[in-house]
């Protein structure tokens, strides 16, 4: 469902992503891990078509993001680390905007919106202007909007930042539920225990290169370390630092 073939991205003379290749299958929850500045957000932005790769190919749902970007974006949803909401729109008005944006049938879209309002418990504030929302309320509204058009691919960047335990639980349940329904989830996250808990497969990126990829057991084998994901992550990133040095 998601395919990256030898993808690179340079910011001037600085190479942020260096020839990475990945494949995420339908219905997988793929977590993308890495230290700060490793190239995670750059990769995600290339997947959404916000940035163009310096080299290589990115495909979402079989569509080449560079040549068929509009089609690719039609089947994906992106929830960034700092999600955007129009301050002077209510949550409901924002969702209605999304329904039109994705060309949904208005009646079906309205029905779906009511489902999302129920699922994310937005009823109490969905008709208030979003400028009055707390971080948790914003995040719930953004997730509800992202799922309105029933995307085939959900790309999430740091979804747990600033969320309380109840909202974290809500997001985790939601992601599991989406995967059960066959949605492909590509998630970047720093909270390794959540990654370990949710991920079908994991990729670790450091200095723009993939230093490990696979299930947790496959990563343990690669790291030659049988511990938790945190230990495996530190071992693999340290090893790659040593190689780079």
């Amino acid at each position, binding site marked *: 469902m998601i395919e990256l073939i030898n993808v690179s*991205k*340079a*910011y*001037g*003379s*600085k190479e942020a992503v260096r020839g990475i290749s990945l494949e995420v299958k339908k219905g997988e929850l793929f977590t993308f891990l890495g230290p700060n500045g490793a190239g995670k957000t750059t990769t995600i*932005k290339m997947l*959404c*078509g*916000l*940035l*163009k790769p310096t080299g290589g190919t990115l495909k979402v*749902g079989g*569509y080449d993001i560079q040549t068929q*970007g*509009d*089609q*690719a*974006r*039609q*089947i994906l949803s*992106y929830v*960034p680390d*700092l*999600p*955007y909401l*129009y*301050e*002077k*729109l*209510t949550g409901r*008005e924002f969702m209605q*905007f*999304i329904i*039109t*944006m*994705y*060309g949904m049938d208005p009646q079906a879209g309205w029905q779906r919106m009511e489902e999302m309002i129920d699922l994310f418990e937005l009823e109490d504030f969905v008709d208030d*202007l979003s*400028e009055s929302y707390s971080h948790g309320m914003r995040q719930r509204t953004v997730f509800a909007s992202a799922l309105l*058009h029933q995307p*085939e691919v959900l790309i999430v960047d740091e979804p747990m930042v600033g969320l309380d335990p109840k909202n974290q639980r809500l997001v985790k349940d939601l992601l599991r539920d989406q995967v059960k329904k066959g949605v492909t989830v590509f998630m970047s996250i720093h909270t390794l225990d959540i990654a370990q808990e949710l991920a079908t497969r994991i990729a670790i990126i450091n200095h723009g290169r993939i230093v490990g990829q696979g299930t947790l057991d496959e990563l343990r084998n690669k790291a030659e370390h049988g511990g938790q994901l945190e230990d495996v992550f530190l071992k693999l990133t340290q090893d790659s630092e040593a190689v780079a040095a």
Partner: protein
Amino acid sequence: MSSADMAFTDGFSGSVVPRQRIMFRTLGQRLLLNSLRLMARKQRLRLGLIAALGIIIWSGLLYLFLEGFHFLRGFDFSGNVSLGVTELIFGLFFVSVTGLTLFSTGLMIYGNLFSSPETAFLLASPARADQVFAHKYRETLFFTGWSFFLLGTPMLIAFGILYEASWIYYVIMPFYLVGFLLLPSAIGAMACMLIVTFLTRNRRAVLIAVVGIVVIAASTWVISLLQGMQKDRVSPQWIEKLIEHIKPTKNSPPASWMTEGLVALVRVKGDVSLIWKSAFTDKEELAPLLDALYYLGLVWAYGLVAYLIASLMATVWYRDAYDMVMSETGGRRKFGASWTDRFVTGLLSWSDIRTRTFVLKDWRTFRRDVSQWAQVVILGGIMFLYCISIPSLPHGQYAERERALIGLLNVAVTGLMMATFTSRFVFPLMSMEGRNFWILSLLPIKRDRLLTSKLAYAATFTTLISTTLVLLSELALRLPWPIVVTHLVGMATLTIGLSSLAVGLGAYLVNLKETNPSKIATGFGGTINLLCSLGYAILVVIATSIAGFIYYSGAYLSEQGLVSFNKFLPWLGLTFLLLFILGGTAIAIPMRLGRRAFRTMEF
């Protein structure tokens, strides 16, 4: 077939563009409506204030234009030239607006297209690049156009009233105003897109070159305009020479289309039955209306074609350009290597180290933002033009008192420029701290110091620039030192007060959600600040003029041996006191409001 293919091939075939067009139009309307509703519900005072001030300013402008056109109508050197002079003034006005709109749209659309969080959100969605561009272009046009409407509508209504235009004039005239903005703003947007797409590496150099060329071209034009006029007083010949030089502006489209069209429109008779009959009989009667519609068509056609080209450019290049801007690193900077930083630090050596540190932070932010300093260069260029033109003005034969009046006008003009400058660049300073406010608020210093540092920053620069300009003009006018001192004190009082108004009101009416300084300056708070600044500038100029009046009255009466000049000194002292009171009030009230708001602000 997948849902994506459905959306782009059969399910929504041919409907994606109209759907998105309607969607973005609805979005814009809803955002505007919600903002107005919110203001009407929670900020009635604010809304009332905007409406009241808007009406006062609009009415004042209408009165001024009526008087101005009336004056021109009576200005008869060689037969009836009044309509010809009015045409020239229209030409000059519309040429100036064309240039200003082109630049301001180009700069503002850059911020709207490439550094707004909204565009990042939209570009990650299925929104088409041209529709995102159109949405942001409309927003930019709204922000750049309102001041044109504030100035343009009273001018054209006054023109209509004075030349007894029919109702048809008032119905068609708004379409002229709206259509006129399309061409320069679309060219500004095109220039922005081209520069971003094709001049990634040398963008800064290109911008400097473009601004430099514009300033040099305008300077050359003004110098050529003033050459050969030095020895004349304002006379019919002087006006005729001026008209000869201004004539090219009258013939430059779209300004010339506007002028020709509006002059034709004012001649259209309002009798519909007569127009209808004329269509079959006397076609001469129809000529003004046909001319007016022809030029209106030209204005709109060229504007829409330019917009279409800009839109096509966005379809092809916008996403690439966005990627280029986002992929820029800005390069590494060697700490302490900038001579401008050292200059600013030296300039503020009178202040304490913490104030200097804050000022340096603001200075670095400013000089690294191309869209900010490019506007300063344009404003500075206009001031430079004005400065170099002073020695060439026809003042050589004037008496000292008349030259002193020109000097006072220089203070007034520089003051008005400074009011614009502080509203555009100083007022947004507090709002621009935005999300970083928590860092500043947690620093182990009093919050008041942040305000005083911004005041020190603004007041130092504006006072230095304005007093230098005034001093140069006073020297060129060969004015006596008491008048020079009076004008310098007036100018310093004016600029320090303007800086204080902008900093104080900037904190009081802070807008932490907006990241685009142009929008902050043209928003509610910025407008209030501009209006207060203009009012304050007028009061200070009046107080300065009183001082000049007392000085020359005293000099005249003592020359006649009627009264000793010394008897006027207490009155002169009183006017200086009046200036200090005005300046003190302009510092105390806004800074107090700003401090109070800033102290209680939560982050």
